[in-house]
């Protein structure tokens, strides 16, 4: 026995030694050679401030960096900054209106010039210019000023106490751009700077060598990157085009590419592809939840202009939590996940499912389907079928809903399943799907947008960027209800309104203590869940795939998936 283990040990040592030597070569700067990435939606520009799409933010993150970033566990880590300012270390003022960041010393742009606090100030000016149409302007919301105290010190002042000050210049969405390069590109002139927008100079591990909009980007290692051995890859091809299935195939079947993003395809097909052994499917869960919104106002077409507005009056039966509860109990979330989402989804009972500190466990009863219980609940409340057509009546109104969502194979499968379950509890439904560009388009003239909500129930996914839910939970304030007077803008889509809820929102905006913020967020989540104005279905994750020869991937949904690309390397 002993001899065997010695022999095994020797064999392992023999095997390891050449490997180690070999790995050294691969872990030098550029030692891993060429990396092929496929994003089937191709980036249109490399300036995330001009686009706002995920594809542009992620591709630009190879070049542009911010002060701090979220790692794969959702923890804020210093990136260009020396450390994360907090109240404890004095970086955040006691009254929560000021945060002071210090840049690491010696960081240079890829053109060799030093990165200074002036670049950060310029970035703020660039994005908040009134004529620029900056897509990430919300990251600078509440910022009164950004001042360069000295070359390395950036002082951000907010116009109100801000318990979570890590928004401006934090995360992949609001990186620092070079003042020298973009100086002539402020405001309305932003689109004129095609060369700068297509080839921003950055501090990141790679530099752009060629950019073809909506097609392909070529990157090369940045010689002046601050970590000596990184990036391990010398060059990167970032190809776009095709569709999710083709992207998955190119990594898992043909092996032409090393990394493919956003593979929201039939889970059976994806696992068949993975079974071929060329690559691995990776998932990461952020805050995305596929949910049903139950209209709390009356969408009856007879109301004309008043339909789906607060003035039009409450919904005939969906404002009753008993109804929403029964509808929620009838749904088998695990089956929806199995059919439509596979590894990319988990059943959830919360609209705020993550981060850990904010996730409530009070509603987990919904994870088990209970059709009999739902029927009993409605029977007890007296909402029974009085005319024998199989549909219950609620105070004489037949409980039939118009259930709409965007056109998408998985969503239509879900709709069909839910319709069937609701029929079993005596709630009829009419299904409708609307092209995504119209549904999410926000055109105030169109009757089919999700904001107008000319339906009883609608389904889509929403999430928040980063890790702090304060702004997200503020979506459901009474004042955020969309209506004709606000051009149907407003995030309180289901038109939920409760004074106690608004009070919690205000309290959270004044609270800095993390544990207390967690308690408040959970209380708000539970309040919405128990109003049954939102029925959460699936906690959705990002699904990507990488070749088995690609090492160092730490998939994250808190920041860009490519956040640690400098550490990626080739495995022999």
């Amino acid at each position, binding site marked *: 026995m002993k001899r065997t283990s010695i022999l095994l040990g020797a064999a392992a040592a023999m095997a390891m030694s050449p490997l180690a030597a070999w790995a050294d070569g691969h872990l030098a700067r550029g030692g891993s050679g060429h990396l092929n990435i496929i994003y089937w939606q191709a980036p249109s520009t490399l300036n995330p401030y001009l686009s706002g*799409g995920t594809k542009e933010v992620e591709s630009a993150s190879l070049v542009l960096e911010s002060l701090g970033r979220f790692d794969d566990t959702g923890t804020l880590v210093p990136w260009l900054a020396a450390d994360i300012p907090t109240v404890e270390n004095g970086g955040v003022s006691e009254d929560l209106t000021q945060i002071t960041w210090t840049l690491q010393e010696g960081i240079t742009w890829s053109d060799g010039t030093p990165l200074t606090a002036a670049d950060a100030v310029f970035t703020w000016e660039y994005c908040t210019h009134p004529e620029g149409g900056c897509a990430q302007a919300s990251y600078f919301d509440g910022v009164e000023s950004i001042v360069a105290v000295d070359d390395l010190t950036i002082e951000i002042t907010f116009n109100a106490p801000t318990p979570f000050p890590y928004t401006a210049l934090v995360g992949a969405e609001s990186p620092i751009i070079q003042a*020298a390069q973009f100086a002539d*590109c402020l405001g309305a002139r932003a689109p004129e700077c095609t060369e700068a927008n*297509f080839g921003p*100079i950055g501090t990141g591990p790679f530099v752009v060598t*060629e950019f073809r909009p909506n097609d392909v980007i070529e990157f090369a290692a940045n010689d002046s990157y601050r970590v000596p051995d990184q990036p391990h890859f010398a060059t990167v091809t970032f190809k776009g085009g095709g569709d999710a299935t083709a992207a998955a195939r190119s990594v898992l079947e043909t092996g032409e590419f090393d990394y493919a993003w956003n593979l929201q395809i039939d889970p059976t097909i994806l696992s068949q592809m993975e079974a071929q052994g060329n690559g691995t499917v990776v998932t990461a869960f952020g805050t995305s939840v596929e949910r049903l919104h139950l209209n709390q106002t009356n969408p009856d077409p007879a109301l004309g202009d008043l339909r789906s507005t607060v003035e039009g009056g409450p919904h005939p039966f969906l404002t009753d939590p008993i109804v929403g509860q029964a509808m929620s109990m009838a749904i088998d979330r695990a089956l929806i996940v199995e059919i439509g989402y596979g590894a990319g989804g988990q059943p959830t009972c919360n609209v705020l499912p993550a981060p850990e500190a904010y996730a409530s466990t009070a509603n987990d009863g919904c994870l088990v389907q209970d059709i009999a219980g739902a029927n009993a609940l409605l029977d007890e409340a007296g909402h029974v079928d009085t005319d024998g057509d199989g549909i219950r009546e609620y105070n004489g109104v037949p409980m039939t809903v118009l259930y709409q969502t965007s056109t998408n194979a998985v969503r239509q499968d879900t709709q069909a399943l839910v319709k069937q379950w609701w029929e079993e509890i005596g709630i009829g439904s009419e299904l409708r799907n609307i092209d995504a*560009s119209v549904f999410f*388009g926000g055109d105030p003239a169109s009757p089919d947008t999700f904001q107008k909500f000319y339906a009883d129930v609608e389904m889509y996914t929403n*999430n928040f960027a980063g890790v702090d839910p304060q702004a997200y939970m503020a979506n459901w304030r009474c004042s955020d209800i969309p209506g004709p007077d606000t051009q149907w803008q407003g995030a309180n889509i289901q038109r939920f309104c409760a004074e106690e809820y608004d009070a919690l929102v205000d309290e959270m905006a004044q609270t800095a203590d993390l544990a207390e913020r967690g308690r408040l967020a959970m209380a708000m989540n539970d309040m919405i869940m128990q109003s049954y104005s939102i029925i959460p279905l699936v906690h959705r994750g990002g699904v990507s795939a990488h070749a088995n020869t690609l090492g160092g991937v730490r998939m994250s949904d808190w920041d860009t998936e490519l956040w640690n690309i400098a550490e990626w390397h080739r495995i022999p």
Partner: protein
Amino acid sequence: MLTFTIRRLILAIPTLLFISFIIFLIVKLSPSDPTAGLPLTIPPEVREQIRESLGVNDPVFVQYFKWLKLMMWDEPLHLIWVEDGWLYRFEDYLYAREICPHPPHLTQLERTDLFPDGDYNSCIFDEYGPRIISYQTRSPVMELILQRMPQTLWVVGTSYIVGILIALPLGIISAYRQYSWFDQLGTFVSMIGFSVPTFFTGVLFIVIFAVNLGWFPSVYDTTLEVTDWETFKQQFRQMIMPVMVLGLFNASQISRYMRASMLDNLNQDYVRTARAKGLSESVVVLVHVLRNSMIPVVTVIALNVPAVFGGAIITEQVFKVNGIGQLLIIAIQAGDVPVVQTVSFIFAVLIVLFNLLADILYGVLDPRIRYD
């Protein structure tokens, strides 16, 4: 013939203006929003600002006339510069005259090398007149089109030529030996090519030749430049699947026309006369019959040429060729009105021009047809 051509060209102007206006109305009035594709985390106020900065909120007629002026006046100035009887691309001219300090189309690395101080932004195109700007990329639409032309012409153009080269002999022999096994087989193949959609044949080809056999790449590399034998082989390998998929479709269509037209002519009296004169079969078929049969076929071929420039939306997507077709479909999905409008308008111009060309070719092929 010249008067006819000039008359037709002049008539084309109101036609094209009308087409451009109709396209604009269709694109504009259809429910689309350039910010629809953005994540829901971007708040409505910011979306409104983006729309404002793109000019989406201007009145429809103002937007149309702005576009028309850019398309008819500014863009031609940008693309073509006449000096001393030479045509230049405007950017090349600026560089040649040292008005612009850097050569056009430099890569980022080359720029950094040439201009370490970072003053390469000093040649901002807007100083030389406004251009049509895409909503998605915020860059000139014409540059996008020029960038996509090579791969579209390579792939779709080659497939068209391949299609014609297959179709003509196939149609001629099929007609000459009507109901023979060759004719039956040709009919069978062209029916398949005609009725099976390219998104099916494309994926089938990929599964067979890229996944199972591993012969050809499934993703087209648009950055590949053919400089030597090795890169030529690479280009050949990546083109063969899309070219064959599209070529099969084109060949099916044209060969049916060729066969039908040959059959019409083979039974004509002049063919009997030619044979009676003792002309050889090859001369009868390939000179007398073929020339007369070509008239309808030439029309079909000429009228389909604009489609080559239009790219092949589905096939380009399947093989990730990212040419004009993909540019158009992405722009439609993203509500990118300037790109959709400009690309569609260029198609319209090409269709009008090739219609004219087909009419002129009739006169060349058939001396009886005269327009003046």
